[in-house]
């Protein structure tokens, strides 16, 4: 076995730090969920280990559903860390800001299909944002960051998943979020059908109406 090189900090996230390392000669990423001093230790440990274990399982199940995710090399629940494949590429968040309308639409259609594949297997990503989507050098779209995900058969969970993505698009890509979301829905329905898509999206709208200060909510 290769000796692990000294890990290099790639990204300091809100929840976890990502380090670049090597695993049997391959570039790998250590995702380490940091201890959060602000919450009680017991609660913190419970949240971090739960999310770590879940993320590893979901990364695997997502692959079976036909969605590309990084390969999981090792999971350490006690330390709340995962070693996984390093995906060389660019975040969709940056990519779609630089490309033409047509390319944006193509990417969003593809994203919709990926979410459709996950949902077909009742896999909920839980934090769909364009920063959690990576395009590798061959243009393959990887989904990462399943820490808030779950396996859930309820329509509600799928509705929330779409709602979160919509919200993420609205706050990050406010100038063209609508066309993106439209393309995503049409990709989604190419996997799950128009009828089911309408059902899920109606749920999304219901979830949004539940929120406070939504204009479309009856007054």
């Amino acid at each position, binding site marked *: 076995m290769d000796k692990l090189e000294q890990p290099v900090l790639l990204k300091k996230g809100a929840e976890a730090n990502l380090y670049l390392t090597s695993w049997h000669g391959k570039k790998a990423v250590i995702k380490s969920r940091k201890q959060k001093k602000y919450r009680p230790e017991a609660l913190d440990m419970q949240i971090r280990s739960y999310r770590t274990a879940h993320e590893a399982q979901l990364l695997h199940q997502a692959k079976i559903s036909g969605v590309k995710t990084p390969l999981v090399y090792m999971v350490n629940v006690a330390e709340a860390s995962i070693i996984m494949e390093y995906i060389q590429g660019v975040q969709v968040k940056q990519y779609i800001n630089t490309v033409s309308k047509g390319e944006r639409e193509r990417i969003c259609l593809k994203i919709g299909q990926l979410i459709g594949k996950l949902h077909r297997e009742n896999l909920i990503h839980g934090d769909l944002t364009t920063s959690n989507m990576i395009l590798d050098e061959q243009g393959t779209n990887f989904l990462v960051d399943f820490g808030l995900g779950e396996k859930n058969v309820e329509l509600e969970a799928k509705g*929330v998943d779409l709602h*979160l993505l919509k919200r993420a698009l609205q706050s990050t890509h406010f100038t063209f979020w609508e066309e993106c979301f439209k393309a995503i829905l049409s990709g989604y329905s190419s996997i799950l059908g128009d009828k089911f898509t309408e059902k899920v999206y109606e749920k999304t709208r219901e979830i949004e109406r539940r929120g406070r200060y939504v204009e479309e909510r009856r007054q």
Partner: protein
Amino acid sequence: MVNTQKTLLTDDMYCLGIESTADDFGVGIARSNGEILANAIESYVPLEGGIHPREAARHHAEVANKTFLQALTIAKIKPKDITAIAFSMGPGLGPCLRTGATVARTLAAYLQIPLIGVNHSIAHIEIGKLETGVTDPVTLYASGGNTMVTAFESKRYRVFGETLDIALGNCLDVFGRQVGLKSQKGLPLGAAIEQLALRGKALIKLPYVVKGMDLSLSGLLTSAVTQFQRGKYSLEDVCYSLQEHAFSMVTEVTERALAHTEKSEMLLTGGVAANKRLQVMLNAVAEEHGAKFNVVPKKFATDNGAMIAWTGILAYRHGIVTPIDESYVKLRWRVDRADVPWIN
């Protein structure tokens, strides 16, 4: 809302602001140099239960005149000195908003001065910026009616995370009522819960629901009430566990927004801002990200007229005037739907 002129640069102006979104009726007076000259407030205290919108509105109508005169007295100005009238146009409770709007329209028409409809949530942020000196913060606004994380991005305050159901203050308030806590001196029940929580020791397992950058508190509320009713845990322990769970959730969401936007300031406002435990948690997160943590002073953190007056000045100076026939209240006016031309 219409832009009548590009920029109105009145050298010195006084704006009178009327706040009436929920249980508080406030009249504040701000000056264009940032001075807050008056911040008079009258609160409706329900005999039992939560805020009854119609009862609250009736209270506001009763105290409006008194509060208005009080504000003028404190500010030592006369009605003719006022340059413009600002009012909370939304979001909030319909009957309460309409009462404040009626008072505002009447004053503007009588004094023949401009009327300015102000977004209540934005006013919370703007008074926070004025009072603490921050310029571009990630703001957690947590009150009885709102729980949201916002930050300015490209022309608007964007909502990065918010509650999917009930607000944080509402969660604490309803819990307090359900377990039989009594309000003291008009303080919200959250204050009583905070005190009890200090003596709590056991951390009970409760739902922790963060969905992306959003959170849900209704399940936590139900579960906390149930845990107490089962009688297995002391009220102190349940209060402690409720606070730890709820505050950890909002803190996590705020941290995500901070990491995402990479801003260097954090601002806490709204009624729940008074809670020391929440302040400690957020401060820890801000420190970790090298950001400066700020809390809005209590009298400006809860609903008040001064914040409306100050935001009125900002808006008026950038040409925002609300014609009386367009001054309908907007019950569900989101922050991300309001123009903020004073920020660039």
